[in-house]
C-alpha cells in the first residue's frame, strides 16, 4: 500500500496487468504457436518441423475453397436471419415489456441454458423425416412427399441462426432499452408518424446494437462446425469441419493451423470492411 501511495501513477498499469497477462497467455502465445505450426511440415510419426512451408496456405485455399465460401455464406444468411427475427421480438420486450421486461428476457434466453450440443441434437429430432414439422410441410405440399429438412443447407443455416440467437438479441436489447422514449415524443411532435419515427430515430440510434449483434453472431457462426456435422451432410460442411477433422482425425497440424489462420484473417478483413461501410467511428462515438 505504501508503494502505491508513493507512486500513484503505477495504479493504472497495475490494474491492467491481469488483463494483459490473460491476453498474453491465452491469445498471443497460442497465436504464435498457431502461425508457426501452419508453416511446418512432416507427419505425426516423424514429427513436425518448421520449414516455412507456405504451400500449406495454397493447399488449404485451393482444396477447400467451397467450404470457405459456404462458411461465409451460411454465416451471413444466419446473421441476417437472426437480426430479422431478433429485432422485432427484442423491440417489443425493450419498448413495450413494462414490468414483464426482465421475465420476457429470461424466457428469451432460457433455452440457451441447455448445452449447445444437446440443443443441436434436439433440432435433429425436430427436423427429422418422421417428425411433426416435416410431416405437416409434406401434407400441405410445401415439401415434396419425399422431401426432407434434415441433412439440407436449410437445416444447417437454421441451426446456426438458432444457436447464435442470444448473441444477436442481447446487444440489440441493450441498444433498444437505452433509447430515450422522449426522443420518440419529439419526433412525433415534429410530424413523424410511428413508421417514420422508427426509420429516422429508433433504427439509426439502435445501429450500434445491430453492429455489435451482427459481429458477435457472424464471427462464431463462420467458424462453426457442430451444426453442419449434426444437421447436415459432408455436402454442407463448412471450414470449421475441415479444420476440426484435420486437427483431430487426420492429425495434420500444419494444414489445420493454416486453415485456422486463413479463417481468422478472412474474418478480420470482413469485419474491417463491414465496420467501414457502417461507419464505425460514428457508431462507437
Amino acid at each position: 500500500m505504501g508503494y502505491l501511495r508513493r507512486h500513484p501513477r503505477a495504479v493504472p498499469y497495475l490494474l491492467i496487468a491481469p488483463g494483459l497477462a490473460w491476453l498474453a497467455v491465452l491469445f498471443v502465445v497460442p497465436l504464435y504457436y498457431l502461425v508457426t505450426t501452419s508453416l511446418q511440415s512432416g507427419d505425426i510419426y516423424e514429427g513436425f518441423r518448421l520449414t516455412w512451408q507456405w504451400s500449406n496456405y495454397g493447399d488449404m485455399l485451393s482444396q477447400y475453397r467451397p467450404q470457405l465460401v459456404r462458411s461465409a455464406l451460411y454465416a451471413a444468411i444466419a446473421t441476417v436471419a437472426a437480426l430479422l427475427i431478433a429485432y422485432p421480438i427484442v423491440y417489443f420486450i425493450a419498448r413495450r415489456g413494462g414490468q414483464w421486461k426482465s421475465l420476457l428476457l429470461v424466457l428469451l434466453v432460457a433455452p440457451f441454458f441447455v448445452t449447445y450440443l444437446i440443443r443441436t441434437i434436439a433440432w435433429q429430432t425436430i427436423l427429422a423425416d418422421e417428425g411433426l414439422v416435416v410431416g405437416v410441410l409434406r401434407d400441405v405440399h410445401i415439401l415434396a412427399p419425399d422431401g426432407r429438412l434434415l441433412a439440407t443447407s436449410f437445416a444447417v443455416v437454421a441451426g446456426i441462426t438458432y444457436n447464435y440467437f442470444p448473441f444477436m438479441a442481447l446487444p440489440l436489447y441493450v441498444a433498444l432499452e437505452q433509447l430515450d422514449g422522449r426522443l420518440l415524443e419529439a419526433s412525433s411532435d415534429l410530424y413523424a408518424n410511428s413508421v417514420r419515427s422508427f426509420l429516422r430515430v429508433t433504427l439509426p440510434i439502435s445501429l450500434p446494437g445491430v453492429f455489435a449483434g451482427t459481429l458477435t453472431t457472424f464471427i462464431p457462426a463462420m467458424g462453426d462446425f457442430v451444426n453442419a456435422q449434426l444437421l447436415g451432410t459432408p455436402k454442407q460442411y463448412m471450414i470449421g469441419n475441415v479444420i476440426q477433422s484435420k486437427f483431430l482425425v487426420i492429425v495434420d497440424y500444419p494444414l489445420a493451423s493454416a486453415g485456422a489462420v486463413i479463417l481468422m484473417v478472412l474474418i478480420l478483413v470482413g469485419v474491417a470492411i463491414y465496420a467501414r461501410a457502417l461507419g464505425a467511428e460514428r457508431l462507437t462515438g
Partner: protein
Amino acid sequence: MSEIDVRLRDVTKRFGEFVAVDDISLEIPRGSFFAMLGPSGCGKTTTLRMIGGFEEPTAGTVLLGDQDVSDLPPYKRDVNTVFQSYALFPHLSIADNVGFGLREHGVPKAERTARVGEALELVDLTGYDTRKPRQLSGGQQQRVALARALVNRPRVLLLDEPLGALDLKLRRQMQLELKRIQQEVGITFVHVTHDQEEAMTMADQIAVMNEGRIEQLGGPTELYERPGTAFVAGFLGVSNLIAGRLDGTDVVTADGTRLAVAAGALGGRTGAVRLGIRPEKIRVADGDAPAGAALVGTVREYAYVGVATQYVVDTPAGEIQVFHQNATPGVQVAQPGTRVTLTWDPQATFLVEGETE
C-alpha cells in the same frame, strides 16, 4: 377582436384514481405569451401535453383555432414543443435536428436549408450546423430545441419548463431572449413553469394552477396586486394575511383592530376573510401612531440586506413581514424590541378567503 389559438373546454385528465387535471377551461389568444404556473403536480405539464397530443383528455375537448384536435396524434397537430429535456436527436447534426420537421412536411431541400439557417440565426447559433448535440453546452442545446420547434412556424409553440436545467444567470438571459423571439415571430407561446419570477418576466397572461385546477388567471400585475386566493398570494411573492371578519369596508381582527380595505378589492365577499398586504407596501414608523390603517407591534427580528431591511414584527393581528427599502441616506435599523407602527395605503390591500379548518 383577437383570434383564439387554443381552447380547452371542460378538460379533465385522470391517471387511474389520480385526477391530474380537473375540469379546466381556458382560451389563449393568438400571439400571446401564456404561462401556466404552479408547484409540481399541479397539472400544468399534463395540460400542456394534452395540447401537444401526448396525452388524451379523459373528458372535454381541446381545440386549436376552430379544429377539435382531442383525438389527433401529435404529428397531425400544428403545434411544436420545446421539451424540458430538449430531446435533441443525438445521431443527427444540429442542422438535421432543426430541419427534422420540415423534412417530414416535405419541404424541398433548398428551402429547408434556408429556413434552418434563419432559425439558427434567430437563436444566435449560426455556424453550428454540422455539430452534434453533445458538442454543445446546455444553453446552446436549449436554443437548438427552440429553433427546431420554431422553424416549422407552428400555430402554437409549447414550452415545457424549457429553462429548468440552466443555471440562474443563463436562465435570466434566456427569459429575455425568449420574450424577444416571441415578439419577433409573433407565434402564440404556451409556457409551463414553476418559477413565478420567470412567468412574471415573460408572460402576458398567467394561469396559476393548483391541484389540477386554475386558481386564478390574469396578467402579472393583476395577479400580484390583487391575488384572489391565499394560494396565489403565497405562490406569487410573499404576502401577509391577516384573519378577520368583514364589517362594511373594514376587516375586524380577533383583537378588535379595524383595518380598511380597498373598495375595489371587496369582490362581494362577506364573513370570515383574510386581508392581504405585501411586505414592501408597508411603512415603518417609530412609536405609537395615529388611528386608521395601522398596526402597532414590536420588532422581533430583522435582516439588513443592503438594498432593503426585512423585519418580522409581532402585532396583535399576528406576525407581519415588512420589506423596507433603504432609499434614503443614513439608514436607521429598528432593533429587536423596538415598538413600531406599521401603516399602508388601503388601496394596496386585497382580500382572500377565510381560513378553512
